[in-house]
């Protein structure tokens, strides 16, 4: 406005200024009167929606977990088929899987806010929701500390900032404790197996890689540029990890067999020491408040010390 007023030389005509002032006041009054909120999401998109959201759809399991942790139980009207935690999430309407949603169902639920994630949901999905006129907020955490940020952002978005801050506080304290406890311990070389055939592990930039580091371990694939590199058994043999952790991605997976398969390779240090463990995959690959449980579990498994008996099956 100011830059426009100069060429018009309105300083000579005070009434113009009055009018302008009145106009500005009117405009700002309208802004104040309409309770719509404007937010910039984690991928830099502008998200506008009227008032505090009352009908929210979550497009990923970790978002659902954050929403429940923030106490938004009532406002959640839709989740994905992959949302299995907390139990109550399974009672909500599923709008598809997180990689593929049913837009008809989303529209019919009349949401006033959809929350998506940059890791998992596609750009196409978000574009399409935008075109359908549904406000969509995208979170995109990439490391453990980003998860805290995302929880805070969603807390601000949903007017649950205090709750968010207390969750974050607790997570920070527990993380600090893990770091302090493991600081003076040696850093074992860890192989985290997240897929059986092909054998897939976690590389640079993945959450699990961050967790291994925070838990005081050394990821043997931590320098791989791919986020989820495929590793042959030979490569694992060569790098001879001191701890092997198998993530239970597949509920039908035969983990006893996978452990006994590893036990054939006695040249691997972890096998010799009986350091093969299982970890619940939801705790390490979901950027949600439960990730802190994953971190503590990871630290426990990594620093358990050499076992003389054969590896026991971790029940989780």
């Amino acid at each position, binding site marked *: 406005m100011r830059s426009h007023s100069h060429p018009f030389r309105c300083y000579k005509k005070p009434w113009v200024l009055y009018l302008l002032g009145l106009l500005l006041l009117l405009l700002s009054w309208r802004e104040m009167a309409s309770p719509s909120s404007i937010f910039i999401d984690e991928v830099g998109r502008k998200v506008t929606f009227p008032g505090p959201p009352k009908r929210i759809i979550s497009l990923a399991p970790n978002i659902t977990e954050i929403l429940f942790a923030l106490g938004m139980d009532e406002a959640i009207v839709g989740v994905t*088929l992959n949302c299995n935690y907390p139990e109550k999430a399974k009672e909500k309407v*599923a*709008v*598809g*899987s997180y*990689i*593929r*949603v*049913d*837009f*008809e*169902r989303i*529209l*019919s639920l*009349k949401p006033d806010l959809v929350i998506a994630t940059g*890791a*998992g949901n*596609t*750009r*196409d999905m978000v*574009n*399409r929701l935008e*075109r*359908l*006129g549904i406000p969509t907020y995208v979170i995109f955490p990439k490391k453990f500390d980003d998860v805290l940020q995302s929880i805070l952002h969603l807390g601000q978005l949903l007017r649950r900032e205090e709750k968010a801050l207390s969750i974050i506080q607790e997570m920070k304290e527990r993380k600090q404790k893990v770091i302090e406890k493991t600081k003076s311990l040696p850093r074992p070389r860890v192989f985290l197996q997240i897929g059986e055939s092909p054998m897939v592990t976690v590389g640079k930039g993945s959450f699990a890689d961050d967790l291994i580091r925070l838990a005081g371990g050394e990821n043997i694939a931590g320098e791989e540029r*791919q*986020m*989820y590199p495929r590793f042959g058994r030979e490569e694992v043999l060569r790098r001879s990890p001191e701890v092997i952790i198998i993530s239970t991605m597949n509920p039908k997976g035969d983990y006893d067999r996978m452990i006994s398969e590893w036990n054939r390779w006695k040249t691997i240090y972890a096998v010799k020491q009986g350091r093969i463990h299982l970890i619940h995959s939801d705790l390490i690959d979901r950027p949600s408040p439960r990730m802190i449980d994953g971190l503590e579990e990871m630290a426990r498994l990594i620093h358990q010390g050499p076992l003389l008996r054969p590896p026991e099956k971790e029940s989780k």
Partner: protein
Amino acid sequence: MKRVTLKKVIVISSLLTLLLLLIVLFSLTVGSVKIKPQQTITIFLHSLMELGEKARDAEEMIILSLRLPRVLLAGLVGAGLSMAGVIFQVLLRNPLADPYILGVSSGSAVGTILAILLGLSTASFGLPVASFTGALLTIGIVFYFGRQNGKIHPNTLLLAGVVTGSFLSAVILFLLSLSQKEELHTILFWLMGDFSFSNFISFRIIFPYILFGFIFLYSRSRHYNLLLLGEEGAIQMGLSVERLKLLSYLSASLITAASVSVCGLIGFVGLIVPHGARTLFGADHRLLLPSSALIGASFLILSDTLARTLLAPVELPVGVITAAFGGPFFIYLLRRRKGVKTL
């Protein structure tokens, strides 16, 4: 074979168009969200009357912004692939020919996968443009190697196409082995055929290809009838066979490339619809081309509707439906009409 008159073409085409309209209407009314047929018709008529955009309720948006573009696009692609199938079958004189036999599909797949891996899929036109480019390059390569002494020999062209296709398949597998989880999902859905992101823009992009393609091919339908009787004969009748084959190859390939670029690889339609139409209405291209196009449109719309409703909210790849339902139906047609001369 019974004589095909203009009257017969018009009558059969009108009947098939009526069937197509009924299927369109049916597909608009069914989906994972239940909307009554009367409401669908009201919403549809309303939108025809007032073209202006206004605030719309959920039902209206579901029908007009989600189902309508999808149904229209599936119709166009179905018609396009079926026409292309008819042409490839007569051009290569091979009943196994389909729009993908000369490698167009593999070419566009390589284009698409590269675009996904390079992150171009975030731009709204990234994938269709990459896919179309890949297809065009393949058409060029196959055409270059498929000719002998400047002439198109069906078998040489076929071999060039199949070999190029298998080379590109190797490239596809190589690229797949490099890709990560999320990219893999996008790629797999594309390879299986996917209408879930249809919009009016893609409809507008491919409409000219299908329309002008049809007009051109239909105007040559008598020539295809001659070609069917043998190349020598056609030449003696004064037909410039080489020109016809060249133009037909190019236009059928372009139709295929355009169709594939907006929805990925939808198999089976371009193979069985032409055969189905041939068993029903005979091999005269004046009737075969329009009837294949109309049946193809109906068939793909119906398949896509099943794909999105059978296991809702989970959506099946449309290719699963085209093969699972189209295959047995085609066998039934074959057995019922044993006596009819096919290709």
